[in-house]
């Protein structure tokens, strides 16, 4: 930073533009790699998993936005995930060939529903469904956020309330058998935009679309968190009262960011549903919502790359481990929660940033990077004080 300050305004701009370009380049490279190289390496089944997990990574970005950057721990994102999934699933359930004997989704016939319920109708159009799958969860999150943040509820209270919300939505969706098929959820999708869903080619396009959407979501989050807005979010996270005293009203910002996060979860739910072929109230399970948080924790909070990475690592780990040791997945998962919180508070990305750089320097034989006053680094007393000051800060 000091260098940049010395370089003057133009220098800053140039440096910033260069790093931005580099980031765009890296993201594009990774995306291209995922799009064209990965399908060659993985079997069809694993590729489908990859697609699903990339969809989950979108939700992880949303969680990172509110937890990593704004400090709000939501344990209810499963609800928004499911709402997005349902929105798209309802659209697909309405893709009934005109020749079919009944123009209703087949479960309605079974339960004696003779007319399409009013709220199903608009989902017949794809543009509506495509907007709704982000808008509905977004609005829902916004509404809940407004009610909660308005009365200055935060911290653990907020987490508990979001958790209770999952149960409520679960009960509601679970009980409405005639309207949305209750526990069984929506499944057995045939076509989307005229293409057969289960077809290999379609799945391939969905996979590509997921990657593009993930990149887009990444860009949105990056944009939100880098500028003034992002700094404000972090201020709210670190000391909301102080931010309030400097004249900001946090409610609006928190509502907005919670809504964006909910919308991202909805998008993730829709893409996940497309690839897994089912959406049911089970997605509103408490356990699933909390698992989403651990993806971000594993990857590294407040780093967008970490969220994506965490979602992929944890889910592939889960998939492989539960194949090998089906009985003991819960032990692994529980250990992961404990381990990450206690030893890796900054996640994988954090570890690479701090330890990794040092190790790399050690390996290449270069000496430790020294800060401005080398003598301070050697002075045990200064070290001790610095450590204690750090500790006190993190305690507050």
């Amino acid at each position, binding site marked *: 930073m000091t260098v940049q300050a010395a370089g003057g305004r133009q220098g800053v701009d140039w440096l910033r533009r260069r790093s931005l370009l580099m980031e765009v380049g890296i993201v594009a490279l990774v995306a291209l790699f995922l799009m064209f190289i990965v399908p060659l390496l993985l079997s069809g089944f694993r590729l489908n998993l990859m697609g699903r997990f990339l969809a989950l990574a979108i939700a992880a970005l949303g969680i990172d936005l509110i937890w990593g950057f704004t*400090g709000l721990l939501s344990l209810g994102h499963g609800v928004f995930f499911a709402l997005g999934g349902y929105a798209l699933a309802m659209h697909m359930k309405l893709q009934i060939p005109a020749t079919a004997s009944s123009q209703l989704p087949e479960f309605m016939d079974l339960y004696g529903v003779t007319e399409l319920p009013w709220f199903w109708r608009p989902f017949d159009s794809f543009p509506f469904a495509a907007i709704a799958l982000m808008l509905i969860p977004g609005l829902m999150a916004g509404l809940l956020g407004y009610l909660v943040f308005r009365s200055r509820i935060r911290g653990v*209270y907020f*987490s508990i309330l979001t958790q209770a919300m999952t149960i409520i939505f679960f009960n509601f969706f679970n009980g409405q058998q005639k309207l949305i098929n209750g526990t069984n959820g929506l499944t057995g999708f045939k076509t989307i935009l005229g293409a057969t869903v289960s077809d290999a080619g379609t799945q391939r396009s969905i996979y590509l679309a997921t990657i593009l959407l993930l990149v887009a979501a990444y860009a949105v989050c990056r944009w939100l968190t880098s500028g003034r807005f992002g700094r404000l979010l972090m201020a709210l996270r670190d000391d909301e009262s102080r931010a309030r005293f400097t004249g900001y009203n946090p409610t609006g910002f928190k509502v907005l960011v919670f809504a964006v996060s909910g919308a991202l979860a909805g998008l993730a739910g829709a893409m996940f549903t497309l690839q897994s072929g089912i959406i049911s109230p089970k997605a509103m399970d408490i356990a699933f919502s909390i698992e989403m948080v651990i993806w971000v924790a594993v990857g590294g909070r407040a780093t967008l790359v970490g969220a994506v990475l965490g979602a992929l690592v944890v889910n592939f780990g889960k998939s492989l481990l539960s194949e090998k040791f089906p009985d003991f997945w819960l032990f692994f998962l*529980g250990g992961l*929660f*404990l381990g990450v919180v206690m030893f890796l508070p900054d996640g994988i990305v954090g570890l690479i940033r701090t330890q990794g750089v040092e190790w790399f320097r050690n390996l290449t034989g270069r000496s430790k990077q020294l800060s401005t006053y080398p003598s301070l680094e050697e002075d045990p007393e200064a070290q001790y004080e610095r450590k204690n000051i750090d500790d006190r800060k993190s305690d507050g």
Partner: protein
Amino acid sequence: MFASILDGIFNGLSIGSILLLAALGLAIVFGLMGVINMAHGELMMLGAYTTVVVQNAFKGIGGPLFELYIFFALIAAFLVAALVGLALERGVIRYLYGRPLETLLATWGVSLILQQFVRSVSWVMVFGLILFSLLFFGGQWLLKRRADFESVQKWIVAALLPLSIGISLAASTFLGQTYKLAVTKPWFGAQNQDVTAPSWLRGGIPIGNFQLPSTRLFIMILTIGCVVGVYWFLNCTKWGLRIRAVTQNRNMSACLGIPTRKVDAITFAIGSGLAGVAGCGLSLLGSVGPNTGQNYIVNTFMVVVVGGVGKLIGTVVGAMAIGIADYVIGTGILGNLTNNPALKEVFAFFATTSMAKVMVFALIILFLQFRPAGLFPQKGRTVDA
């Protein structure tokens, strides 16, 4: 009419007292440390499993003593849960003070481990765990005598950890291969366990057309006992005084020489012990299985949210309010009170057990608009209070 009113009051209070019993420990811990213990439900589950073990032991003895097993089970459940709670506090939570959200995640991890633990615990597993602790901690204890222990500790841990895991794994595998089912059979397995109330708790006390179930009466009495006990402990003992002091102002208490760490540990142990007692009591009414704890957590959290932090009375009133609301809405009594057909329809829509929960949650959110800090908030001058 009289019977149905009595029935309503009794059932509402009874549901409320179950919630209260389950939430009591949680509320105390939350009040003191600001920590939400997601493993609270699992501590209740451990209490319930302790009841199963005690019951089976007394079945062996048989005779009239069996009728009294529940009292021994209560004590045992308190002790087991309190010990596990203490271990949890010492081993995990105390490193995370001041980071409530991380604590929440870590205790969720603990709850997952405990759930799977009761599913798959067997002699081999216990043996392996003990062997591992002996090797790992014993090894460190031995090596601590070296003068340069501090400087090489990292390496010692790095070497000792895989070594002790490897040895205990190999030993328990060997044991499992040699003795087969006798040692590898899970103690409990994934199935639900049966807890049968002693015969004097199984019937009910008839009042006219209506019958008061004994187990529910017992739980109400147990709840009253626990609340009175906690009240007495907090207000009439030395440690209670300290707990209250730390709850009100941690830094000031520390300055005055109160060992806040010890206070935390004791409170956490007592809170966990109360969860154990709750688990024991609830095993008379509900199921005992690996999922038992999960069924209660959200409701107990709601009690804490509604009741507010740091006052026992808030928890009591919060639990009763939720319990009565749940019952009144769920049975559709409200529909009988009004003549407005539209309202009647609304009440009828919510008059199933599932939908009543939806309504109660909406009411809680509404309530928090007016009293964001709960019924009886702590008064203070900080911005955050």
